[in-house]
């Protein structure tokens, strides 16, 4: 048995409570509050204490999917990425980059948000990028 705790930051609200992921043999089994954190000082709310549960939910997606004949069908990454990129390129060439828009995510990391807005601005060529800050 291998048990580890990995310090990280809670992904619910904007408080930024620091937590320890409890990992046993590669599986996420629980969450503990960081006692040294200047924000939560050893406490967590009900959502924080149960933070691991959605991560290991059976409803997590495990494969890319494409809609074929009306329903979403599992496929390979190669096919999914080629299909999405191909259709984005086609729409861009027909109607221009401003006919494409993207929503980034307040749940994702800074680095991912940086990559998303770079992708939209540099690869697609539009400023049509927003996220849920207003919602």
């Amino acid at each position, binding site marked *: 048995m291998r048990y580890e705790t990995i310090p990280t930051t809670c992904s619910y609200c*904007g408080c930024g409570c620091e937590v320890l992921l409890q990992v046993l043999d590669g599986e996420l089994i629980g969450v503990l509050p960081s006692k040294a954190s200047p924000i939560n000082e050893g406490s967590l709310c009900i959502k924080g204490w149960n933070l691991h549960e959605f*991560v290991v939910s059976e409803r997590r997606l495990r494969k890319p999917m494409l809609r074929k004949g009306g329903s979403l069908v599992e496929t390979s990454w190669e096919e999914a990425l080629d299909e999405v990129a191909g259709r*984005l390129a086609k729409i861009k060439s027909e109607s221009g980059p401003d006919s494409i828009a993207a929503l980034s995510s307040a749940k994702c990391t800074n680095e991912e948000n940086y990559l998303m807005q770079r992708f939209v601005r540099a690869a697609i060529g539009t400023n049509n990028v927003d996220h849920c800050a207003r919602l």
Partner: protein
Amino acid sequence: MTNSIAELEDAACIFIIGSNTTEAHPLVANRILRAKQKGAKLIVADPRKIHIAEFADIHLSHRLGSDVALINGIMHVILAEGWEAKDYIASRTEGFEALERVVRGYTPEKVSGITGVPAEQIRAVAEAYARSASSSIVYAMGITQHTTGVDNVKSLANLAMLCGRIGVECGGVNPLRGQNNVQGACDMGALPNVLPGYQKVTDEAARKKFEQAWGVALPSEVGLTVMKMMNGLHAGSVRALYVMGENPAMSDPNSHHVREALSRAELLVVQDITLTETTEYAHAVLPGVSFAEKDGTFTNTERRVQRVRKGIEPVGDSREDGWILCELSRRLGHAMELEPASELMDEIAGLTPSYGGMRYDRLEAFGLQWPCPDAEHPGTKYLHKDKFARGRGLFHAIEYQPPAEACDDEYPMQLTTGRSFVHFHTGTMTRRSPSLDEEQKDPFVQMHPEDAEAHGISPPGQVKVITRRGSISLEAKLSARIPKGMLFIPFHFAEAAANLLTIDALDPIAGIPEYKVCAARVERE
């Protein structure tokens, strides 16, 4: 937040407005309750008697959407009594005369008529806020989700500057942000008008810097906000929408309109960790990973850039979100290297002045608060010390305007929406968490017992809530915490989605929808 979470604990007066703090930001509420224990005065302005209002010295139950009038009334009293910070106003601000002219018209008696708050309470709040040794304002979406959202925020800034409360310890104007990294998503330029670090897309020098770094010409026209994207899908001017980690079919106002827009997309790509209401319309679904499966950083509500560390391998064949974006970008002819997160942060730091000193080795312990312009800078505990970011703090003279939709005979009640203590946003995480789901399984509408009686409703009973946009059926929960004539529905529940009812009237500047007030009626089922 202009100031830091820990500072709240030592404030002499805390004014909470439009924040259900104990339910939505419990660990910030902890600090506020500790301040209260140390003797701080606590003022809570919220139409409902929310949990934290029980601890308040003064609870103002003002009418939905009457915030500007309330704040102007408080400032009127402060000026009439001569409690304003005269030296601060003279040396650090501008536009005071215009503010004074407008505020003069907002007598406590007049404001009482607009807000429903007794004039005496307005005077008491003015005294507590202006005369305490330090005063901090805390707000959340109850302030911003209005057609006057920007006016509301500016009014709070007016009040704080009037009393010299900005740029000082334990003071400030402190928005509590609802999502773990909504601050960071804004900082990183996931907005249609700015590049990372709020550098305008219309600013040629800023664009040039990024063009050089990325080796490509960049668009100079401001892009579409989320609501305009939906309108574009309706009109056909937007053909493709790419959604990463969001659920607009549930989260956006007037959902019928939004779902119609999504169904018209020629290409809807959703990158998420589970199926959602939005993936029902998707042509492609790409499985990303949760926070526990990747390295990176989040920026919290007090501007603290904090490490996120990978604890487990991606579930199934899901992939890191950054990998997905890099693969697509490469296929579209713009190569973005998938570097380790720490090197990506170095790239960000080089292009984003407020993040200039953010390096992973410095973030290891408990992060750093921006602005942190260089490698030696210790980070910034509170903003606008000695001088505002723009030089002088600008007062805005603002008149009260009512909400977009007035009540009438057909829709005589007011509906507001928000969160509950156990659930989060559209429920894609909390409702899939067995322990949390167990706490609150079903949607409900909170209403006053006398309203229920007038409609012949006796719980447990299903009711129908109807607005001009739609109707939903759900259980009525009676509580005297909510004023008569008002309904509250949490928006977490897809089977009775509050946003089928909400109005998509927007603040003209921020584009934020008026989730917090629309006209409604209730019927017994």
